[in-house]
């Protein structure tokens, strides 16, 4: 007699209630507070990996990869400013605050950006001497909180960025928890030491685009019309926001997609508000083109830019430049595997660490702890960032030359195809091997 075989159902994880979801429910039940973290959206989103370039062959003429010039420079702020910003490469450093980052980290960003002729940007917390001193081109953010905002620094800036929102949290304000409000940070922000600082989400002295137009003129008057004024928006209703930003008088518009990082906000905000970067660019470009302002009001795109291919794809879709934040931090050394043991102690792992608001960053970058800060060398960090920026530029040039372009800004949507129906619809380029752009009339 043979033994009857038992068949067991293999335990099956729910796609809806997966392990991450379950752990968050337990954490919420335990603490009674939403999860706060840094970085951008971690969910899988349609992104630039879903786009491919059509290199030259019979119908297009490529450029020699190592011999023929491919221009990377870009001028920002040509609409109204007496002194537009000239960048040697179209990759800029996005706004990150002193407070969220250490003064050394801000210094390193300045060093790296300056070494390759690009700009860096202040953040919610004012301008530090370290950053101004090391940044040949510094964009000064004008934020709802106005922490550290003063006209002396305004006049020292090479450009002013009026921040209406950011991709990680469109409609939300900044957040810097008490662990990072040290004496210096508190003094710069006029706050009590150790307070959980939650910045305003709206500007205090204007309420709509008509007011903003007057506000921008005020900033121009104070700076005697010398420097460009940017408007930064988180990607949501991008088409309308860009039109209103042009009307309000922006020289440059920065559109930050939902993959764009933040120092700290609610996880629910990061993952559930905004649209992917790739979906925002065609909306912005359409708005500019309809107003006859494409290339006259420059477009900077940020949110999830990782490599030269991402840079080139943004530019092919119509951006004049890109900005990087998370990638710049990684280039400096954040989330480096050499700190794995310490990331483990914090309940995380290298590559996933995002509790920047707690101020315990083992890499010494997103912290105000004097001992941790000592781990980070701003000169070495600056060198690493410069290297990374050079690689981004070389990669983007490689792709542009392959498409027969002698200027990164000559890349165009016609150079791209999409791998998925979703990305074809969002980027408004054909699905690979077809002439089909979902949502648009088919043409040949």
């Amino acid at each position, binding site marked *: 007699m043979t033994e009857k075989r038992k068949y067991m159902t293999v335990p099956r994880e729910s796609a809806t209630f997966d392990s991450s979801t379950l752990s968050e429910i337990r954490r919420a039940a335990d*603490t009674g507070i939403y999860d706060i973290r840094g970085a951008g959206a971690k969910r899988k989103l349609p992104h630039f990996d879903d786009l491919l370039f059509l290199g030259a062959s019979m119908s297009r003429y490529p450029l020699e990869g190592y011999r023929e010039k491919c221009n990377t420079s870009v001028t920002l702020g040509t609409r109204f400013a007496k002194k537009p910003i000239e960048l040697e490469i179209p990759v800029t450093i996005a706004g990150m605050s002193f407070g969220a980052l250490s003064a050394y980290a801000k210094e390193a960003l300045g060093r790296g950006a300056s070494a390759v002729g690009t700009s860096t940007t202040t953040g919610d917390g004012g301008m530090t001497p370290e950053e101004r001193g090391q940044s040949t081109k510094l964009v000064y953010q004008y934020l709802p909180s106005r922490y550290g905002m003063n006209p002396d620094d305004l006049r020292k800036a090479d450009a002013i960025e009026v921040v209406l929102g950011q991709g990680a949290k469109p409609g939300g304000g900044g957040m810097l928890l008490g662990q990072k409000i040290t004496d210096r940070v508190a003094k710069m922000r006029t706050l009590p030491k*150790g307070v959980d600082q939650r910045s305003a989400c709206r500007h205090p*002295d204007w309420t709509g685009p008509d007011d903003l137009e*007057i506000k921008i003129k005020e900033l121009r008057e104070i700076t005697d019309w010398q420097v460009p004024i940017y408007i930064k928006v988180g990607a949501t209703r991008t088409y309308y926001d860009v039109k209103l930003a042009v009307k309000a008088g922006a020289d440059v518009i920065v559109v930050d997609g939902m993959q764009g990082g933040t120092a700290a906000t609610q996880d629910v905000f990061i993952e559930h508000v905004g649209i992917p970067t790739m979906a925002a660019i065609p909306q912005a470009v359409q708005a500019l083109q309809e107003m006859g302002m494409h290339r006259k009001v420059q477009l900077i795109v940020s949110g999830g830019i990782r490599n030269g291919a991402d840079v080139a794809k943004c530019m092919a879709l119509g951006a004049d430049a890109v900005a990087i934040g998370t990638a710049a931090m990684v280039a400096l050394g954040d989330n480096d595997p050499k700190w794995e043991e310490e990331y483990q102690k914090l309940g995380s792992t290298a590559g996933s660490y995002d509790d920047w608001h707690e101020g315990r960053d083992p890499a010494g970058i997103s912290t105000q702890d004097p001992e941790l800060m000592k781990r980070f060398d701003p000169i070495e960090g600056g060198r690493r960032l410069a290297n990374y920026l050079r690689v981004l530029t070389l990669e983007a040039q490689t792709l542009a030359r392959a498409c027969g372009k002698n200027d990164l800004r000559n890349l165009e949507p016609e150079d791209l195809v999409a791998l998925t129906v979703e990305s074809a619809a969002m980027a408004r380029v054909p699905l690979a091997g077809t002439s089909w752009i979902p949502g648009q009339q088919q043409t040949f």
Partner: protein
Amino acid sequence: MTTNNLAETSAIESVGGVATVDLAVQTVRDLNQGLHDQHDEMTIEKWDVLNPKGHHNLAVGVNQKLKIDIHGPAGYYCAGMNQQAEVTIHGHTGQGVAENMMSGLVRVKGNASSAAGATAHGGLLVIEGDAGSRCGISMKGVDILVKGSVGHMSCFMGQAGVLAVCGDAGDALGDSLYEAHIYVKGSVKSLGADCIEKEMRPEHIEELTELFERAGVTDQDPRDFKRYGSARQLYNFKVDNAGSY
């Protein structure tokens, strides 16, 4: 539009040490450039601005000990980011008068619209009439004296400085307040989150007395005022306070 049309200026001339800028003839750009030209070396101390007619951005970004009189109503952001100058508006002002002021004195003879003294770090703002909503929003060290009343959400997220109101205050006074001091003589329609009435101690009488002296106010008695400040219960997140956010 081109840069040049908007950014071009014409020179300002002075007679008897006083510059007169007639905005019926000259531009706001002319005025501000003329004022900014005084930053390195003050050659004209007194400035009279005629026919302001609600123009925006008058006398913004000044950083010199100038005396500027604006003869009529001003629009948005008058005396914005002022440093050192003494600016008097002989009329009403629009939104954001003396916003982000760092130092100096701004006096409004009439009423001020919303967001008066917003985010200002220093100096003194005197409003002889009423102020609209959000007076002193996110103030960071400025002292504001309003002889009339203030609208709703005044001193919202006020971080430092003094807001003194000789009349009444609207809804949600001092919402999410940090360390700014608020004094109100009249009624308060409601207090905002984390704002409470506090004891008026001798040092507060002294603070208010000194403010009245600086503002040239002689018809007010500090003992008639009540003090409001932060309960400091929302400084750090506690789940038990979730209903207050």
